[in-house]
């Protein structure tokens, strides 16, 4: 059954969207007209340029409201999420103990030029995130957080040295899509060294979806709001599946 949807403002199917952008034009009637016409080129209707402010010589910032035209059939939309049953701290530790019968070794890092450890810290640091303990807190997990600006080579070398079961890779702040290049570089390095199948490889960060991660050659991807136990549950479930299979 088809399920047509459009953005919702305050009435079903009104198509209301808000957007903001900067154009390299002076803030003038002509500049505002340019913003309006540009939004129209995006196939938006009833364009209202509600705010225009010059933010540098020859650059103007616009806030625009408009109505979106296209309709999407929601019934045709498919997306994956990391599919594991939720487990809590104790269940995860018990499962590692009974199923794996040794500690689960997890190594994590922020790779490339990104200096932000906030994502990897939220998952790995003792304290964890949003009242959910980090992997370091799990007695059955041996967690190694290498921090930020780790090269792919260092990460792989360390993963081998520590005999890691899983490698967690974070990219928080990116510039000109550097995060995609970095994620890809790691997969390519692992494949070149014929090491890809040795580790469960997990991506994380604000721009990460599970679909994107699978496309990049990762086993899973976790976006914003992920708590450590979700990652840990995925890791142990996958480990045991692989062990069984």
């Amino acid at each position, binding site marked *: 059954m088809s399920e047509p949807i459009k953005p919702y403002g305050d009435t079903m199917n009104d198509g209301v969207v808000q957007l903001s*952008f900067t154009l390299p034009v002076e803030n003038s009637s002509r500049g505002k007209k340019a913003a309006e016409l540009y939004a129209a080129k995006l196939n938006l209707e009833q364009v209202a340029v509600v705010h225009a402010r010059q933010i540098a010589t020859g650059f103007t910032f616009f806030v625009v409201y408009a109505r979106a035209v296209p309709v999407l059939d929601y019934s045709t939309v498919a997306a994956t999420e990391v599919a594991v049953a939720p487990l809590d701290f104790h269940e995860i530790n018990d499962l590692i103990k009974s199923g794996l019968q040794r500690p689960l070794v997890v190594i994590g890092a922020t790779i490339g030029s990104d200096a932000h450890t906030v994502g990897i810290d939220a998952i790995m640091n003792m304290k964890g995130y949003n009242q959910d303990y980090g992997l370091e807190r799990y007695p059955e997990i041996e967690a190694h957080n290498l921090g930020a600006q780790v090269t792919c080579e260092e990460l792989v070398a360390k993963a081998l040295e520590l005999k890691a079961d899983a490698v967690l890779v974070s990219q928080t702040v990116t510039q000109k899509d550097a995060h995609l290049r970095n994620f890809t570089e790691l997969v390519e390095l692992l494949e070149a060294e014929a090491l890809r199948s040795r580790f469960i490889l997990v991506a994380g960060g604000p721009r990460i979806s599970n679909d994107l991660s699978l496309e990049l050659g990762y086993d899973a991807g976790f976006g*914003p709001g992920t708590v450590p136990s979700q990652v840990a549950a995925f890791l142990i479930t996958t480990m045991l599946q692989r062990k069984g299979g």
Partner: protein
Amino acid sequence: MAQIPLHQEQVDRLKALAGDIAQQVQRFIVRHSSTSVERAVLRLFGVDGVDRDGTPLPNRLVEMLREQGGLSGGVSRPFAAALLASGRDPQTTAELIEQGKIPFDVPGGNTGRGLLERERQLGRDAVAKLDATRRRKRAKQLVHPVPPQPWRYLIVATGDIYEDRLQAKSAVAAGADIIAVIRSTAQSLLDYVPYGPTTEGFGGTYATQENFRIMRAALDEAAEEAGRYLRLVNYSSGLCMAEIAACAALEDLDMLLNDSMYGILFRDINMQRTFVDQYFSRLICARSKIIINTGEDNYLTTADAVEEAHTVTASQLINEAMGREALLTDDLLGLGHAFEIDPALENAFLYELAHAQLARQLFPNAPLKYMPPTKYKSTDIFYSHCLDTMFNLASITTGQGIHLAGILTEAIHTPLMQDRALSLAGINYVFNVARSLGSEIEFRAGGFVARRAQQVLDEVESFLGEVRGSGLMGAISAGRFAGISRRSDGGKGLDGVFEKGDDYSNPIMAQLEKEGVTDE
């Protein structure tokens, strides 16, 4: 300004404890020098440029001396001897040395008056350059006055110094008082200062003397239009603290990130190396009137901002004491702290006020560097903008000095031009509407803020007592700061540290230590 009632005797005790800790480290520092300190000496003597392979001449010369086993006396006297031999200026002499046309080695027992006088002259010329930058900056500040604090601090980081110029000017037009050019990733781990203008970087722009000059000129131009003095910031951290301080002084920079503790903990720089480098870099800053910025705010990106608040205060006290050893005056101490408490905590803002006000009162004359929230920034940019608004309010209420602009897209990407403009609009709004709030309110004796400040102070006192017992290096090894442990013989750059020989000389350091700071 509203004051939290503090016990002056306790504050005096804390300062004395920090002083003891700094002196322990200072006893180590004075016996050592490093390759980076020696390279900074050459730079201040007037040596610049690179060889055919792109290696900076200061590096080449120090390595040449080291290969002959002659570094323990320092680079200064051999260089003075080479100058006498060449009869040319320092730069030409360095080039001749590099080309192997004149000898460069330890002048043995030669301590003749001609040589010693030439060396002292080199030192005086170098210090004169530091005096000149201070005077140039002051002259500019007479034409374009320094704006009131908190100064609005914005970063640019395109990787291309020419693009940075455009971004900086747009930030100034929107109200920025300070422009920091973020360095290219991992430059802190390079054991040399790159050369010339650069147009490619990773997550930032290389710090080079030429890039400093380009941005300084752009800001001087922008100051004409803005009618206020604009400060330029870069990073004297990592393996080249002293050299960057030298380059920064030569190009009239106003502010440098400069904190050993940050390098040790977050960049795994060897602690012996960075303490030694930091001392000379700070002597240069003190004389040139460059404000240092310390990195305590970073502790809270890994450790909890409530549980570990006392480590921030303790580190500020230690940095102040180490700064004093290097003759830095209060007006040059941009001690760092941050607004990083979990917003889910009830009354988180009161904790933030307590911490910010405590820093203000402990260091009443320091231009404190206040960092915006980063850890709890959301990808919901509208919510993140609200967090920054509360940060702006805490800053103006407690009279902070250097206000780093929080950016609504902090959790997503390096700032777009419009992100910076929105950030500044928020800052300008809050600073204007709450300008005098701090002098209108009182912190209730025995109230939440006062009790919290007292609790932090008590924790600081016991923590500093512990650090004095183990020594700063011991405390860092034990993971007492930011939960990160570093060994005194681990990390990067230890091989550049050496013990000063009996024949060691460094006329710049000697003169700076002897004459102290001056406001002339």
